[in-house]
């Protein structure tokens, strides 16, 4: 096995150039909390590692057109400490805060969580529920991609050679809207989600739901956007009947696998329970802003 080349460029352009010119497999290194573990286990063997943490722009959280622009190399701890982001998109912040222990939080990034393309990644259902988009930079310049279109399957992304995610953008929060993310793990902390559920909903002045997005993690090869579950809420006051319909729709949408963390039947059931509970929290939040 050959030595691994390590580079830490200072700009997105330099990083893209390095990635594009690499001969063998090249990987972006953000927090390294997935990549280094996978390398240790022999699952990936890159010849080039491009460390993006030195790209200042990629570690910032900035206001953006009423919403937010979160650098892809921003760690969960930073995201958790940003009060205005938390006020606007609590679902995204609580999901990012769930990634790993304190010993991981100060490094693990939101971009890494997205690009690692694990169906169980915690921040992804929340970002998609919030309507997040990404800026992807590559040899041919920049393009916008919906956050839900980055991962294509477990460990697979739509990124081409030389491409990387620069930032994740969250829109301005519509009035009377709330978001929430819940996950289920069999231990109280530090584990991969058995199921994750993100909900984002908006109400009109009369308390009737006008828009909703419901997402599920870890129940399919990639994060699911469950339109039937959203439809169950829209046009209703998000009452017991609507919540029950949402839970049923969420369960119905699941295509999970059986593994050590849970059976198909269990994941299907939990998806409904969590989506419903997350909707309850989102509703409460929507009512209070």
């Amino acid at each position, binding site marked *: 096995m050959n030595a691994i080349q390590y580079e830490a460029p200072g700009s997105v352009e330099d990083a893209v150039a390095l990635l594009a010119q690499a001969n063998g497999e090249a990987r972006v290194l953000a927090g390294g909390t997935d990549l280094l573990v996978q390398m240790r286990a022999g699952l990936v063997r890159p010849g080039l590692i491009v460390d993006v943490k030195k790209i200042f722009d990629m570690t910032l959280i900035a206001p953006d057109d009423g919403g937010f622009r979160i650098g892809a190399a921003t760690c969960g701890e930073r995201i958790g400490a940003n009060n205005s982001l938390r006020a606007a998109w609590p679902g995204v912040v609580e999901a990012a805060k769930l990634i790993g222990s304190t010993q991981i939080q100060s490094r693990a990034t939101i971009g890494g969580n997205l690009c690692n393309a694990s169906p169980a990644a915690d921040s992804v259902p929340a970002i998609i529920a919030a309507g997040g988009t990404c800026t992807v930079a590559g040899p041919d310049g920049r393009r916008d991609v919906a956050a839900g279109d980055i991962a294509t399957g477990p460990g697979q992304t739509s990124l081409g050679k030389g491409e990387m995610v620069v930032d994740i953008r969250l829109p301005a929060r519509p009035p009377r809207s709330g978001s929430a993310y819940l996950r289920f793990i069999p231990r109280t902390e530090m584990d991969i989600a058995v199921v994750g559920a993100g909900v984002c909903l908006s109400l009109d002045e009369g308390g009737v739901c006008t828009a909703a997005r419901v997402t599920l993690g870890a129940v399919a090869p990639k994060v699911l956007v469950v339109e039937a579950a959203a439809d169950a809420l829209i046009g209703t006051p998000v009452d017991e009947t609507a919540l029950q319909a949402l839970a049923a729709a969420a369960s119905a949408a699941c295509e999970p696998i059986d593994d050590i963390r849970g059976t198909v039947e*269990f994941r299907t059931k939990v998806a409904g329970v969590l989506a419903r509970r997350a909707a309850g929290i989102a509703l409460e939040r929507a009512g209070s802003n």
Partner: protein
Amino acid sequence: MNDATAPIAGAEAIAFTVNGRPITVAAAPAKRLAAALRDDLGLTGTKVGCDAGDCGACTVLIDGAQFCSCLVPLGRIAGSEVTTVEGLEFGPLQAAFHRHGAAQCGICAPGLLIAATDLLRHTPAPTEQEVADALGGVLCRCTGYRKIVDAVLDVGGDDGGKVPSSGAAVGARTVKVDGIAKLTGEARFGADAVPTGALWLKAVRAPYPARFTVGELGPLRAAHPGLVRVLAAADLPCNAFGIYPELRDQPVLADGLARYRGEAVLALVGDRDSLALVDAGSVPVSYEPIQAVHGLDAAMAKDAPRVQADKPGNLLVEGGVVSGDADRAWADCAALAEGVFETSAVEHAYIEPEAGWARRTGDRIEIHVSTQTPYMDRDETAHVLGLAPDQVRIVPTTCGGGFGGKLDLLVQPLIARAAWLEGRPVAWVLDRPESMAASTKRHAARITARIGADDEGRLRAASVDAVFDTGAYASWGPTVAGRVPIHGCGPYRLANVRARGRAYFTNTAPAGAFRGFGVPQTAIAHEALIDDLAASLNIDRLEIRSRNALRPGDRTATGQVLGDSVGLAACLEALLPDWHAALAEAEAFNAADPRSRRGVGIGCMWYGIGNTAPSNPSTMRLALSRDGTLTLYNGAVDIGQGSSTVLAQVVADTLGVPVDRVRMVVGDTDRTDDAGKTSASRQTFISGRAAQLAGEDLTQRILRLVNAGADASLDLDGPSLTVTDGGARHRIDLTALPEDADGAVLAGAGRFDPPTTPLDADGQGTPYATYAFAAQMAVVDVDLALGMTRPVYIHAAHDVGRAINPTLTEGQIHGGIAQGLGLALMEEYLPGRTENLHDYLIPTFCDMPGITVTLIEQAEPLGPFGAKGVGEPALIPTAPAILGAIRHATGVRVTRVPALPHRLRAAIRDMERANG
């Protein structure tokens, strides 16, 4: 088991600051910081427990923020400031850890201290939740986290750690004799003191049970010039070892047949970097899968293939106890309860993977290793190498957790053989997946049990049939099969008992010793049945246990008449107020919260201290040198539970000197005597008694020198020893006395072998000299929709005879509860699937409930100052109590552990369906 570890070529000079000192390391930028700190900078205070971000043992501060150093490439930290445990001053935080006994084995302490330093810097007065959050990514397998939380909440608190006055050490919360080194990073664990220039060893392991052939090794050697030797089965003079000399069925290296995934087939020896570059796929071994036997049903099937050719029916061993006539007594029972209960294989998950190094000194071999059993290591390694036992010296390193898992040979014979042949030191440190695949497990079990009672709830008869999956080799299987029938019906008066234990071979990693030797599995069964009887007879669950609890003078199922130290009734009495309060509180809680339900459960246990029936002596020696140093030559390794401290307390009070006068040589087989294994909760009782006898012997010799009476007192002040006998004072000038070969001027020795008798064909006899007893109650909340159980409170009452050190005793109980909780709720070892600490879950800070410990002291006359043991008893009642609480909350009788959420949810669903 993997090789993509360290393709670390292309060194660059990387400059950063470590503990305030600017340094430059020549290394590849992709090398991990943890490895650079340990291997390049010699800062071995930073530990590596998983190399994957899961355990937090490697936590350091980087520019003031805590992070796992195993996940940081060196290139990333150029110009940064790194702080390791060696860079922390011994301040109020460390003092609090020391005072609270927060480091047991201590392998987790460096990471915890760093994490706590980070927390306290910005949150000087944290809440309990803040402590748990900040430290939550650091796993500890020993403490159950309670003492750690207590310590962090008590930084700057009163220093109660003062040395107790002469004669008052026993019963005092003295600090650990080996505690400080564990808090500074100085303690040397198995991987920490490898000599420079050592060769390293790497095992090639079978990917599945298989017949295999080794091909031509020439190309491999040519590709890796740093590879100096490849050891195969034929290179071992005697390729067999075992726990029982008459049952040496396990090869050091498999010989053409690997019976389980993870069994070693070859050992590569070479320089470390070269070995790191050897890809498992490039080693020419071809495997032909065999028809493997997995699980008890397959092992017991009529036409099952044999795991070991000479073991028909795959039966390793069978043990049993028969007393009275259970078959006749059933008819007299007003209520019968029966059931089948299954438990999973469980991994020890000590944070320190197996590690050690060996060197040859002339015609002897010296092995520095993390172990629980230096003397067995010596004898078995000598056997494998074809040497006499006295040609092998075992020098135990600090042990980063054992729990029974370091009672089997693993690294010892191979590093010894390689060092013997090469004439150079050879080291081996297992990585986490390899450790998990190769090491022993708790026996998976199936227990079929039946208990009957009269209409007042008095137990009349019980039968237990326990079968255990013992894996591919015997290991400690016979011990489990022997111990279980004795304890199988619980700590209750029972005249009619039929109990049987059998262990079957399968093609999985050998099941070995794990805290409790099968008794924790069995307790799950008998306690569930007692709950059944309580329900059908409408008797309170604590009350029915009280009615049946063994008491002094009772006869056990093996016909042994118990002495005075039987404190179960007192344990139950201690729980009573809490029990009723918790039941009332649960009722109120359930009326208010529809989402989760609260339940309360109880579990009891008894546990024979020491090995079952055969002689298991311990010998301790005590020497006084000319300068007044008192040294205990102590062959009992301290694996974190605190035996060294307890023995020092015993010796101090026996002689009447302050405890800090007692120095110690621990475990070195050249310098100590055989104290037996650190297992079976035996060291406090057996070695403690031996140490007390050694102290009495030394005292006698001193008194005889000056013709003083037996109640004279000693005062040791440097080279001057004063004996006060009534009004008379005699001064002994130690410098004037002749020295023996060890430099001692006065010495005493003590040997204790607990009085036991072998069991007859019906299991009748006195298997143990004394028993520990305990009862625990648990309160849990179950989220009904998710099947998720959260223990909220545990009250543990333990009869320990005498708590020689209450802090350490509580620490054992907390740690046992954590492991019992893991057994009940989350831990399940699946070969190939849970071979790391992110798929194999052990409890973290936030999983632990509040705990109250009540120590009951029904003195055992044979024990030192009345002490018995607590190591294993701590764990046994926890799972039954939690499972009883789940049942109280949900109505579901759990028959398979762990009660994973999906299993519990399925059971709740079935019950809901059945109830319409």
